[in-house]
């Protein structure tokens, strides 16, 4: 699960990391009030950043500076409501604009291949790390936290020295350890600071330089959310498709795509394979849908409803290889779902494995079109979609 920058900063702050103050504004007026307070505190300018869960908001014009409260209100007004990669901006973060001396990149990520937490740092901060990886791979410093002891101080120092942060050693060690702590405390897959920056600050004792986290990106391990009830609240309903939310609540993996053939499959690998075969047969999948293991009739009905909500869907392919999942349960769910459905779409059903015979009896009685091989099922679904496609095409 991705969370917004402001929430990610909150998690970092809770682990004692140096994150400058921020406010979240849902309207230009709120942004103006936040800016007024920040400017009154001595800041010369404020930065206003769109809060969306997609990258590239800077390029899209979602990050802007303002020198006065008036300007902040206007800038916030221009950002709120804009669309970035299909997401409507509904809130902005307002913070004092930092006087940046130098920008760095630092992240902690679960390295699946090494089966350890990987710390990744670079003196080339503020730009996309993927681009740095392509242009200057040698500029990326990596170190694996010990799988049993966690990140050791010496590892953090080593990273800091190699990133060129030897002059801010203690602070850099604190940030590196804090990232890992944030990761472990919240079961995050990724905790990323970009930029981590040395900024100039004016205090009563004069100008000082310190290391601060200017941006933050955290993604959470969905499997661990049940044990972090507080984190579930950070899910942003503004950015979640209502269909996604329903799928999630039903325990279904669902991703809407652009094609016309709805797919209902058990198992992620088999679901992708089914999509591949639909495409191979000349069709386009309308979705990825994995009903998971041991799915019961009501889950099947929910899955069917999710597929049928998409007006583009002109045929449905059900492919179930029963292991834990019992074929007859799925068949019953399909029959029930069809009884309730308002839109008539051709359906090709293939159920093999556990209780396949019982399923076949039920499906035959209910007059479903069935298939035995997966290739055959894909071909039949594509053919059905084509015949429907003509009619719906005519209807448009």
């Amino acid at each position, binding site marked *: 699960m991705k969370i917004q920058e402001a929430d990610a900063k909150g998690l970092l702050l809770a682990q004692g990391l140096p994150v400058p103050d921020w406010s979240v504004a849902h309207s230009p007026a709120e942004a103006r009030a936040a800016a007024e307070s920040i400017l009154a505190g001595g800041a010369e300018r404020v930065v206003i950043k769109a809060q969306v869960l997609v990258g590239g908001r800077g390029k899209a014009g979602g990050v802007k500076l303002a020198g006065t409260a008036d300007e902040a209100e206007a800038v916030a007004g221009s950002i709120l409501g804009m669309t970035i990669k299909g997401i409507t901006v509904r809130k902005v973060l307002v913070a004092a604009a930092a006087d940046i001396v130098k920008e760095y990149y630092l992240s902690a990520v*679960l390295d*699946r*291949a090494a*089966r*350890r*937490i990987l710390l990744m740092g670079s003196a080339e901060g503020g730009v996309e790390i*993927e681009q740095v*990886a392509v242009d200057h791979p040698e500029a990326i410093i990596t170190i694996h936290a010990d*799988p*049993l002891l966690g990140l050791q101080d010496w590892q953090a120092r080593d990273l800091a020295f190699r990133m060129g942060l030897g002059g801010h050693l203690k602070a850099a060690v604190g940030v590196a350890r804090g990232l890992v702590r944030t*990761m*472990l405390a919240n*079961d995050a*897959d990724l905790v990323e600071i970009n930029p981590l920056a040395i900024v100039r600050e004016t205090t009563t004792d004069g100008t000082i330089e310190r290391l601060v986290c200017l941006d933050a990106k955290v993604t959470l*391990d*969905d*499997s*661990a959310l049940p*044990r972090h009830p507080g984190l579930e609240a950070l899910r942003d309903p503004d950015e979640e498709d209502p269909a996604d939310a329903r799928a999630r609540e039903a325990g279904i*993996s669902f*991703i809407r*795509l652009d094609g016309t053939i709805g797919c209902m*499959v*058990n*198992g*992620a*690998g*088999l*679901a*992708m*394979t089914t*999509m*591949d*075969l*639909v*495409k*191979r047969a000349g069709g386009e*999948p309308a979705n*990825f849908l*994995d009903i998971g*293991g041991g799915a019961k009739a009501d889950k099947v009905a929910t899955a069917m409803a999710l597929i049928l909500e998409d007006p583009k869907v002109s045929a449905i392919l059900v492919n179930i*290889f*029963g*292991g*834990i999942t019992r074929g007859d349960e799925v068949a019953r769910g399909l029959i029930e779902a069809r009884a309730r459905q308002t839109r008539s779409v051709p359906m090709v059903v293939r159920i*093999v*494995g*556990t209780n396949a015979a019982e399923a076949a009896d039920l499906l035959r009685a209910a007059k479903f079109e069935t298939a035995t*091989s*997966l*290739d055959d099922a894909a071909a039949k679904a594509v053919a059905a979609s084509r015949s429907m496609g003509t009619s719906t095409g005519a209807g448009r």
Partner: protein
Amino acid sequence: MSILIGRDTRLVVQGITGREGEFHARAMQAYGTSIVAGMTPGKGGQTALDGTVPVFDTMQAAVRETGANTSCIFVPAGGAPDAILEAVAAGIDTIFCITEGIPALDMVPVVEVVRLTGARLIGPNCPGATSPGQAKVGIIPASVHREGNVGVVSRSGTLTYEAVQAMTDAGIGQSTCVGIGGDPVIGTTFLDVLKLFAADPDTRALVLIGEIGGAAEEEAAAWAAEHLRDIPKAAFIAGRTAPEGKRMGHAGAIISGGSGTAASKVAALEAAGFRVAGSPTELPALLREAGYRG
């Protein structure tokens, strides 16, 4: 012969008194697997599977009393990492963790301890393994198998069944089928399994079933290119048409940048001498094309 499990397997089922544990233990026993013990804390002294299997409170007791050497875990996600560590400490050699939904960071220290002690963990979130005619550990439906000499390794669940069923339907039997699991942090990789198959005299051909995401297939292919040149090999990669940047279920199939794509995996496998199928149903024909005569 076979890998991981076989006639010498003496299985203890951790969580045997749970609904899932009991259901699948029964199926394993029906297949002929020697289930010597069950283990559920607090149920020690009872029996399971109609009185045929003694249940113990601890793995230490289960191993001491029954000589179990393999375990299969059906414990819920919250307790599964602990169950793995208990199996390791009790001296179990081969541990299958079927449990899904274990937080990834919980597994980081566990796989390290497994590595340090020299035990073998398959999974978590894996369907288990079957050595047809000898033993079945996990949840792969018995009906898909046939005795033979093709080693199968896969990171998917139902896709494995599909592929194995296709082979069986075509008269091609398997030495062992292994599902390594689709979680972010797993105990045994494609490469590990290929090495085991390479050392098994009864495995005379290989089928690898991969998915988009990560580089485990590429890593395995690189090793196979060097060490498994003379054996017929076929493969299938799921997700060729998956759009970039979308997460396809918790198999963890994420495409990022140029690595982990179906194209890169197919290329690596073909370079290593695998014949790569466009559909699981093509695997039997490709194996035959590659010279397999089983």
